[in-house]
């Protein structure tokens, strides 16, 4: 038992891998024998939750003193706290919102282009009895508090659905990218020599493609589905993390505490899992927070230009519809954009605060 634990680099990793395998097993059962009790997304969420619990909440709980220290430092940035509160609000909306709002895909042509509450807009409607178009002022109704789009879909429901999509893409794609970057960075720094050279040259090649262009190219080839977009962003967005982790690991490797650990006979695995990774994690958390807004924007931009998943209602898709009807219904373009803007702003605020908190050189 002790040996197995050692191979995985600690009890926590062992338990995590075990649960992950169990989840995979249930997924395979579900896919091939029981046939789709849950959608594959549920499993992805569970994986995500496992990672958060094991490598986010648990370490924070164990080292409460350090958690308190970081929190105190982050708290001094008022904007970062505002950002965090808004993000928590978004997460709540993403989880519970879709149960409380109408169906975002329900088309209702008689109620199309309704303005939000408090506004009114001129609308021409076709009168069947006289056979003529009549123009009249239409006020917003509480049935559709944020109005409806050009097909009569409820804007509030679409925005709530978009929140879910954006957070899904933002968090999952970042997680994938960070994971790949962390592994490649540590491996590259630790192996050194030929392997390091090859990995870093590959990173150079990936960095040479303009990110968005590469994304468009990949989605063009493989076809638009939300899954694939998440994977594509994750598989292309790791380069910055890999470089950062590599350079940090290289400088850590020569530090005294790692030398001491080595001379006491610690294995490579132990050094990597107990000293290297925990010490680069703070930079990784900062780069993760700061790269989430970019990922959310990339997904929105993809759906805006029509390369998003056509089966889900995302902010970019609503925005695209909004540009088409700018002259008749301004709110369709304004509302998803404001959500997108506030979300990106919140993550940028939080990222800035987290960076200052985790960077020991900065004196707040």
């Amino acid at each position: 038992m002790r040996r197995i634990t050692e191979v995985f680099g600690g009890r926590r990793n062992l338990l995590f891998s075990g649960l992950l395998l169990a989840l995979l097993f249930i997924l395979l059962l579900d896919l091939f024998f029981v046939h789709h009790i849950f959608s594959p997304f549920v499993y992805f969420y569970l994986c995500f939750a496992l990672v958060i619990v094991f490598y986010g909440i648990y370490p924070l709980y164990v080292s409460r003193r350090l958690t308190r220290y970081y929190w105190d430092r982050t708290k001094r940035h008022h904007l970062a706290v505002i950002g965090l509160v808004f993000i928590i609000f978004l997460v709540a909306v993403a989880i519970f919102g879709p149960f409380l709002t109408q169906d975002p895909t329900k088309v209702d042509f008689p109620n199309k282009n309704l303005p939000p509450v408090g506004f009114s807009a001129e609308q021409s409607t076709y009168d069947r009895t006289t056979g003529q178009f009549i123009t009249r002022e239409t006020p917003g109704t509480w049935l559709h508090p944020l109005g409806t789009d050009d097909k009569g879909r409820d804007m509030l429901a679409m925005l709530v659905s978009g929140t879910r999509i954006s957070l899904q893409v933002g968090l999952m794609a970042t997680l994938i990218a960070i994971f790949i970057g962390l592994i490649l960075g540590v491996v590259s720094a630790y192996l050194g020599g030929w392997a390091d050279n090859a990995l870093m040259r590959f990173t150079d090649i990936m960095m040479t493609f303009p990110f968005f262009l590469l994304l468009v190219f990949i989605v063009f080839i493989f076809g638009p589905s939300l899954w694939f977009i998440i994977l594509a962003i994750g598989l292309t967005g790791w380069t910055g993390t890999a470089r950062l982790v590599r350079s940090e690991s290289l400088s850590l490797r020569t530090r005294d505490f790692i030398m001491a650990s080595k001379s006491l006979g610690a294995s490579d695995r132990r050094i990597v899992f107990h000293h290297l990774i925990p010490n680069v994690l703070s930079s990784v958390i900062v780069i993760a927070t700061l790269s989430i807004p970019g990922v959310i924007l990339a997904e929105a931009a993809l759906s805006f230009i029509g390369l998003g998943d056509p089966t889900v209602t995302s902010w970019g898709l609503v925005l695209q519809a909004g540009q088409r009807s700018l002259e008749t219904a301004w709110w369709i373009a304004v509302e998803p954009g404001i959500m997108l803007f506030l979300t990106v702003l919140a993550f940028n605020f939080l990222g800035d605060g987290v960076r200052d908190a985790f960077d020991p050189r900065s004196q707040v």
Partner: protein
Amino acid sequence: MKRGGLQNYIIRRLFYAFLIAFGVVTVTFILLRVGPSSPADKYLANISSRTQDPAKVIEAVEARYGLDRPLYQQYFNYLVSLARGDWGWSFSTSLPVIELIKRHWIYSFQLILLSMLFASSLGILIGIYSAVKQYTKTDYAATFFSFIGISIPNFWLGIMLILVFSVQLGWFKTYYDTGLPLFSLANLKALILPVITLGTGMMAGYTRYSRSATLDNLRKDFVKTARAKGLPEYIVIGKHVFRNAILPIITIIMFDLAGVVFGGAYLTEIIFGIPGLGRISFNAIFANDYPVVITITLIGAMVVLLTNLATDIVYTWLDPRIRYD
């Protein structure tokens, strides 16, 4: 500085750039061939309406473009034709791809150039001014607006500009007029909104960077010396501080030129209907015109490579302290 050192460095970098270009082409080729649909299918999507037997068409297309040969031969042929400047045939426009790009690159170029000028000049000025006036209301306002500028999605900003200035106020056209001569005031006016759309995010970034770079330099000893000598403040800032602060910003501007601008210009062209490279590849995607999409991806990668190289060389010229040997 030894000239030989720099020359060797440039030669080494060029060789390295060549290797990376090779890698980029390889990655593109692999992506293209591991995709679920073969290039022949994409061709087919365009011609199938005119013919009866799709299987025959696939066969003919595969034979014509060498897609029936082994993969390594295809790869080799692909490299050879790229090197010979034969970038394929765009069937949605019935032109050679190279001809298509020759006709349209200028639209992207003017947009990017003007936006860079707008963003860098204004951004650096505001950044330095706000650093000099640190902790005043002006400084806080500049910091706040740069935060907003960084966070605002540029495609949404573009739509909002159209909504306010074109739809509501009617000052501009909602669409870019392609009939305008390139070097004219009317064209410049038509580019105002696109340039603001593309430039705002970058400008905000440069404001932040130049503010922090200026602050770093303001605390240095040589600034104290300059002030102690009794130099007027505008010379201290404009000459001593500015020259040192500008260096890191130039790297960032060059980096943006390659990466951020390509993504941003892409979206800006689509929103305003500017017929640049972004708009072309956007149209090509929906027409399944894959030679155009590949070529524009490759051009994007090449621009990044060349600007990285240029940055390094410009750097040695701007900062004599840097040596490459």
